């Protein structure tokens, strides 16, 4: 209080000369401005230190089916951390974020996750250019890919505790490759943005190839703008990788262990749409994947009936989700999400030639199951820096089994102010 009173008195003293004179006011102000500008030189950029923030997260969960046995039946396992959280109390990843400008030409950012298993994972570590101009930005290092809508959003900023089934099945949760990205924003009044990425193909659907050159590349385009009190964005993305011996384990019809591996080409298209009104957010994405190549099958370590086999394999599978989140009180939001995957068409030469294993020997790939999931959540965010969430999901990822998942989650961030990403 004494500050504002002090200010008021200071102003009362300053106001008389500032407004009484009629001639040199402009020059006086100019001098004052220069003086103040000189005073403020030292501010900004946290006096050369990077911005630091830490995100603390944890869950308490009641999961009907054992999370260890989680699978999305009818879809090749993506190998990502896609299951529901552990039963009971558990810590989630703690994220440590450092970012800042490097020099006039580059900015850098590191996002490290301290996992509850006491490991450190580099989620993102990249540079972006500052001075290319003309709407161009180059990014390099490890980063969350710009494909789709939710892929680029950090887990702690999601509207639900976990990601959509389509992300789990087709991208192992999300795509964060090592590579470079170039984006261009068109000089238009509405948003028109094009981007491309070239990467190593470090994670699913690629297989981290040991080769020179690129193992994955993608293209994405977005349009967006304001319409009748809402803001919207729509995008189309394409990802192409060439997995080599992408291997996973399964069980044949005699419950013997088998290994299967896919070698060929995998192409993924994503169409995304997001719209926001004052207190309402609508978000939907559609995924379509085509894989063609060879599938190898080996039951030597299990039933040992057929030994190693290989034949042509071709699949077209798709999935989508739609979700809506409504802020019904300043600190409270509620949301609903519907997920669906479509098993689509899977042509497996080993089965089709009729000489060896049957579809029953490929329960993961060949079960004609269309997984669905219904999720509701309520969250309470006392400030921008804290959030508590209760979420319930009825998950039919597995064939003939319904998994009921109840999760209580906290997300707390301290340090630098987070970004209000659209």
């Amino acid at each position, binding site marked *: 209080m004494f500050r504002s009173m002090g200010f008021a008195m200071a102003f009362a003293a300053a106001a008389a000369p500032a407004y009484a004179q009629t001639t040199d006011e402009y020059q006086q102000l100019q001098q004052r*401005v220069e003086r103040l500008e000189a005073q403020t030189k030292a*501010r900004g950029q946290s006096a050369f230190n990077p911005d630091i923030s830490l995100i603390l997260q944890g869950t308490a969960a009641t999961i009907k089916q054992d999370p260890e046995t989680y699978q999305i039946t009818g879809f090749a396992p993506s190998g990502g951390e896609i299951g529901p959280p552990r039963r009971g109390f558990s810590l989630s990843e703690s994220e440590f974020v450092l970012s800042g400008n490097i020099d006039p030409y580059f900015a850098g950012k590191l996002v490290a996750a301290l996992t509850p298993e006491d490991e450190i994972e580099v989620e993102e570590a990249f540079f972006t250019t500052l001075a290319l101009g003309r*709407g161009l930005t180059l990014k390099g290092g490890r980063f969350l890919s710009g494909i789709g809508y939710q892929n680029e959003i950090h887990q702690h900023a999601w509207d639900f505790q976990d990601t959509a089934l389509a992300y789990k099945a087709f991208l192992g949760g999300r795509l964060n490759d090592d590579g470079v990205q170039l984006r261009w924003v068109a000089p238009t009044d509405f948003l028109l943005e094009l981007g491309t990425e070239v990467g190593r193909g470090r994670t699913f659907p690629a297989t981290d190839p040991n080769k020179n050159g690129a193992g994955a590349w993608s293209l994405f385009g977005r349009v967006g*703008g304001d319409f009748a009190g809402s*803001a919207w964005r729509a995008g189309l993305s394409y990802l192409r990788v060439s997995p080599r011996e992408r291997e996973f384990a399964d069980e044949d019809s005699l419950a013997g262990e088998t290994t299967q591996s896919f070698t060929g080409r995998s192409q993924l298209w994503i169409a995304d749409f997001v719209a926001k009104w004052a207190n309402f957010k609508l978000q939907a994405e559609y995924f379509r994947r085509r894989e063609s190549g060879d599938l190898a099958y080996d039951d030597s370590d299990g039933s040992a009936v057929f030994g190693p086999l290989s034949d042509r394999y071709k699949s077209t599978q798709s999935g989508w989700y739609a979700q809506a989140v409504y802020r019904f009180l300043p600190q409270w939001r509620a949301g609903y999400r519907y997920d669906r995957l479509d098993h689509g068409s899977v042509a497996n030469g080993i089965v089709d030639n009729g000489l060896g294993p049957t579809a029953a020997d490929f329960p993961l790939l060949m079960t004609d199951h269309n997984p669905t999931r219904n999720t509701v959540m309520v969250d309470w965010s006392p400030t921008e820096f804290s959030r508590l969430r209760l979420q319930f999901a009825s998950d039919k990822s597995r064939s003939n089994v319904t998994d009921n998942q109840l999760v209580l989650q906290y997300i707390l961030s301290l340090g630098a102010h987070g970004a209000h990403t*659209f």
Partner: protein
Amino acid sequence: MRILFSLWLMAAAPGALAALNIFACEPEWGSLAKELGAGKVTVYTAATALQDVHRIEARPSLIARARSADLMVCTGAELEVGWLPLVQSQSGNAAIRSGQPGYFEAADVVELIEKPARLDRSLGDIHAAGNPHIHLHPRNIAEVAAALGSRMAQLDPKEARHYRESTKDFLDRWRQATMRWEKEGAPLKGVAVVVHHRDLAYLVAWLGMREVGALEPKPGLPPSSAHLAELVGRLKQTPAKLVVRSAYNDPKPSAWLAERAGIPAVMLPYTVGGNDKAKDLFGLYDDTLARLLAVPR
């Protein structure tokens, strides 16, 4: 490709006519830029008066508009910390990055009040540099106008004379209006007031009013019933003449308090566009004063 090219032409056309393409973060700076540019600039304003400036997101249209801006005029002092850095980096426009001449921060050229002695988030949404809601003090507007006018002249040297003249013209009109407002507002001196958020602190200081409480328990936290009840009790000891809120605030808490404490609740436009009368900065001040003076003292 042809579509792309024609889009490009469409977008480039309006930019080619005006000398300076200005992206204003808040309506008050959009209005000021129009006054100083006087026909030689195009102005896009990111926020409306009915939006809470703390909650704005880096929505697609902002990235698109920032892409082709020559000058970004914002408050600074961390008011736009949640969205502006994202808009600056995603737009791929090197001219409007912090530290470049194409980025103008109003808070840099005025003295901020309420600089926190302690920086601790347990105290609520506080800004390290001080209270960033600077535009409701006429001297701040004059200082920002002088600095912004010379920045515009620097960025567009061909029209420098025009900007200097319109700045001088604006400052003349502003000084006369300020003298009128100070005379009209004299009866408000010492009047006890309850505010919603600390966004009216400069206005309260300028008019010499006395702030005796805030509806928000801590800056940025929505009013809670416990805090409001406590405030009613406190007003019995130190009565207030009125409770004020800004146009973008929820009207319910101030209405609730007004009824319990038996004092009028007054909505202030807060910035340009906050109501029909606040069409420009002059209208904003005229209407703000008229609304405060309408309260029986």
